[in-house]
Every structure is written in structure tokens, then in C-alpha cells.
């Protein structure tokens, strides 16, 4: 009769201290039962957070997967005004609302990466005249320059325990993967090959990395064991596989894939080695998987403008984020906020 499987009902009232109380229930129409009833409280300026909380609870009750509605995204926007560029690093809610400026520069900003504690961001900034890796605390705004080498300083990636950062440096002749110990500030070189090695990302146990290398002729995804430095090629389908982004299960990854001439986002299963294309737009890049592993965000183009889009890992759901001024690129989905 209702034509729907579930129903969310609720009510809101004011309580002491100028706060609001929201009571909501999830009703299973088919089974004719109430799944749960919850009460949350918050101030008037916390309404958006409460709404995200409701979404999280409804989503996880229906799917069994934690909701990712209370998470955030970092991304870069580039605007051009009469030949002068402005680059901005922003953080916003996962749906693009409540945008907050983290850094503004006339020089390029690239590769934002969330620390596992969701309180720090690493990124590449060209503000010194050449690319360097910085870290910035989202609460205090405090910044620290982590690298200052000649050549490439790029693709920062935090280890799962937050104590180390993998990165690309070409200071020793060509792009190689290094790991920086954030406490001791010591660098350790992991790859030794004349090819381009870049875009490192950590496996959840912190013992190996995935990275992009063209040592086989074209960019492909490789796995590197940190202790032994042994490498293993993972992707064989298509002539370009790069920029792996791991789902929290440590088994599925999103990547940029090209078979003929168009770049799509694809998912790759590390166990079955099966690759599935997820997007049909062209020039798709920078996939970032949500911390619940259900969705990923990526950068694409609408006409000549860069926009962000999201797609579910089973490719069933897809949406484009509301357009902003200028080009938007390089989304990075935060971990769960605690």
C-alpha cells in the first residue's frame, strides 16, 4: 500500500538549555515491525550532525554496514581569474556541505591524505617554488613541512597506525617509494628501479604497500613487502592501472583503469584478481573509498569543468556532487570520525 519497504518516522522538541531532542524510529513495513527507536540531542547549530547520525543509524540497520554520512572529504579546487590561479584545499561534509578552507595558494596543491585519526591532513604544496609535502592539523591549523628535496616530493600516504608516511621522492635519480618515520624523521627507501614508482598506499596490517609502477612498460599496480622489499605485480588487464585506494576489508581496491583510450574507475579484488569497471564517464581519476567500503568518490569532468562524483562499489548507485566555482579535484574520504 505504501509502496516502500521501510519508513522513518520521528519527532522533535525543544528541551532545557536551548537544545533539541530528536526521537526517530525505523519501521519495517513488510515485516510489520519496528527495527529500532533512538533519541539524540543537540544544539541548534548541530542539526546537520544529528541528521547525519539518523542517516547512519538507518543505513546500518538496513544494510548491516556502518553508515558513512558523518564523515568528511578533503579536496582541491582550482580557479583561474585573468590568468592568475588560486588553489584551495578544502574540507567538507561527505555530501559537500559546510565547506571549510584549509589552505589557499597561488601555487598548486595536490594529493590530500587523511591521517587515521582524522585530525591531520598531509598534502603536496608548491608554495616554496617546488613540490614539498606538508602536514596540517585540522583543529589548530598548525602546519609542518615534512620534505624539502629536489625533484618530486609527492603522493603522501599515512600508515594505518599513523606513525609513518609513505611517499614518492626522486632525489636519488628517479621516482622511488620512501617511508618517513614521523617521530624520528628518518627516511627509508623501499624501491630500487629506474622505472616510475609512485602512489603508495598501505595495506591494513602495515606490512606491505600497494603502489603504481611502469617497470613492466605501462603503469600497473604492484604490491611491496616492506620487510623483504619484494615486489609482486597485481594487475594485468588493460594498459594502465594506477592510484589504488583500498577498502577497509583490505581485499577490494578502487583504481584508475584504461583498456582502450578512456580512463575509468574500476574495482579490483585482491583475492580473485577480478577487475570490474565502475564508471562510464571519461577522464575519471583519484578514486577514494569511503571508510565503510560501500561507496567511493572520484574526480571527473562535466563538460570542461572538474567535478566530484560518487559511485557505490557495486556500481548500483551514482551521483555527482553539487558544482562549485572552478575545478574540483582529488577527493579524499576521511576515516570514521571518533
Amino acid at each position, binding site marked *: 500500500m505504501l509502496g516502500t519497504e521501510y519508513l522513518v518516522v520521528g519527532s522533535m522538541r525543544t528541551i532545557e538549555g536551548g537544545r533539541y531532542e530528536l526521537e526517530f524510529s525505523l519501521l519495517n513495513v513488510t515485516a510489520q515491525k519496528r527495527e529500532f527507536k533512538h533519541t539524540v540531542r543537540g544544539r541548534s547549530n548541530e542539526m546537520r550532525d544529528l541528521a547525519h547520525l539518523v542517516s547512519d543509524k538507518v543505513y546500518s540497520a538496513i544494510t548491516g554496514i556502518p553508515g558513512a554520512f558523518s564523515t568528511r572529504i578533503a579536496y582541491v579546487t582550482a580557479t583561474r581569474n585573468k590568468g592568475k590561479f588560486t588553489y584551495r584545499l578544502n574540507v567538507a561534509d561527505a555530501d559537500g556541505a559546510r565547506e571549510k578552507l584549509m589552505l589557499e595558494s597561488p601555487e598548486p596543491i595536490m594529493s590530500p591524505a587523511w591521517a587515521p585519526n582524522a585530525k591531520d591532513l598531509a598534502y603536496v604544496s608548491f608554495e616554496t617554488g617546488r613540490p614539498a609535502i606538508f602536514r596540517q592539523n585540522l583543529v589548530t591549523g598548525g602546519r609542518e613541512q615534512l620534505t624539502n628535496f629536489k625533484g618530486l616530493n609527492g603522493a603522501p600516504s599515512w600508515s594505518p597506525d599513523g606513525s609513518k608516511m609513505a611517499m614518492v621522492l626522486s632525489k636519488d635519480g628517479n621516482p622511488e617509494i620512501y617511508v618517513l618515520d614521523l617521530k624520528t624523521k628518518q627516511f627509508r627507501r623501499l624501491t630500487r628501479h629506474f622505472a616510475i614508482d609512485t*602512489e603508495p598506499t598501505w595495506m591494513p596490517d602495515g606490512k606491505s604497500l600497494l603502489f603504481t609502477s611502469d617497470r613492466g612498460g605501462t603503469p600497473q599496480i604492484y604490491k611491496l613487502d616492506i620487510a623483504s622489499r619484494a615486489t609482486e605485480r597485481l594487475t594485468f588487464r588493460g594498459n594502465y592501472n594506477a592510484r589504488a585506494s583500498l577498502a577497509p576489508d583490505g581485499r577490494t581496491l578502487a583504481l584508475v583503469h584504461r583498456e582502450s583510450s578512456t580512463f575509468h574507475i574500476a574495482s579490483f579484488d585482491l583475492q580473485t584478481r577480478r577487475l570490474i569497471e565502475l564508471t562510464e564517464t571519461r577522464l575519471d581519476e583519484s578514486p577514494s573509498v569511503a571508510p565503510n567500503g560501500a561507496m567511493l568518490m572520484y574526480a571527473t569532468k562535466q563538460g570542461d569543468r572538474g567535478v566530484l562524483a560518487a559511485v557505490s562499489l557495486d556500481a548500483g548507485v551514482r551521483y555527482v556532487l553539487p558544482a562549485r566555482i572552478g575545478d574540483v579535484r582529488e577527493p579524499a574520504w576521511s576515516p570514521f570520525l571518533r
Partner: protein
Amino acid sequence: MKNSFNKAGLATIFFSMVLAGCSSAPVEETTTDIEDTSVQTGQVDTSAIDDSAVESSADTVFYFDFDKALLKPESRVALLEHAASLTSNPRGVRLEGHADERGTREYNMALGERRANAVKEFLVLQGVSAGLIEVISYGEERAASYGSNDSAWSLNRRVELK
């Protein structure tokens, strides 16, 4: 193929360095004075295309094929002129490498650097002191031409000499 190119390139660079005598000893300190852009609040856009400092009249932009870092014949002709000018009147040069927007951003940073290094290796082969040459890659971050089509892309696959 890439392996033999690198080995051949290295062999000829070594050979020409021996021929050129000790001029190959890199004086790393001088290169950091070039194009010292200040932090983000500065209004001076030193990376704008401006070749008023270049002394040779030859082309200062060199183009590349998709996914390739090989110098084209016309680039070599222009670079021979620059090399002659730089060996007779040594001055610091900055080589800025770029890629078109296709593919991932960090890989394109590496590709831009590879192209700039190809230009640097050629100049060093011609006797220019390696210590005078600074290599910076902008990947796909500083396009010369906008638009997602072949003609725009071909204008972005470039190295600029400044």
C-alpha cells in the same frame, strides 16, 4: 627498449663529461638561488610564461608524444642553439616539465619530470654544466591549453625552458 636507452644515454653523458673536463662537477648551491618564489601570500607569479631572460631566440617550449619522454627532432635543433648559448654564456636555467590531463596526477608528475630530464640530459650531452640546470615538474597542474581534446592535450605535453 627503455633499459637500453637509459644505458646508452648514461654512457654518452659519461663520455661527454669526460670530454668536457671538470665542468660537470655540480655546484648545487647556485641552483637554489634561481626563481626563489616566496610563500603563498606573495603576489609575484614567477612561474608565468615569460622568456625575457632567455638569450637565444630559439624555441623555449618542447613538445612530446602521449606517454612518451623522447625528444623530437625539432626540439633537438632548438636545444643545440640553447646549448651553444649556455656553454658560451653560462647562466642558470629552469626546465619545467608538464603532462596532459589524462591519467593520474602523481604519475603525471613523474612523467613531467621524465620529460624535463630528457631535455636536461640532452643539454648536458652538449656540454652544458648539469649544475646550472634545475628540473621542476608540474605534472598536469599547469596546463597551457584548456579543453579535453587532442589539440589541447598536445600543447600540454611539454617542457618549458626558462
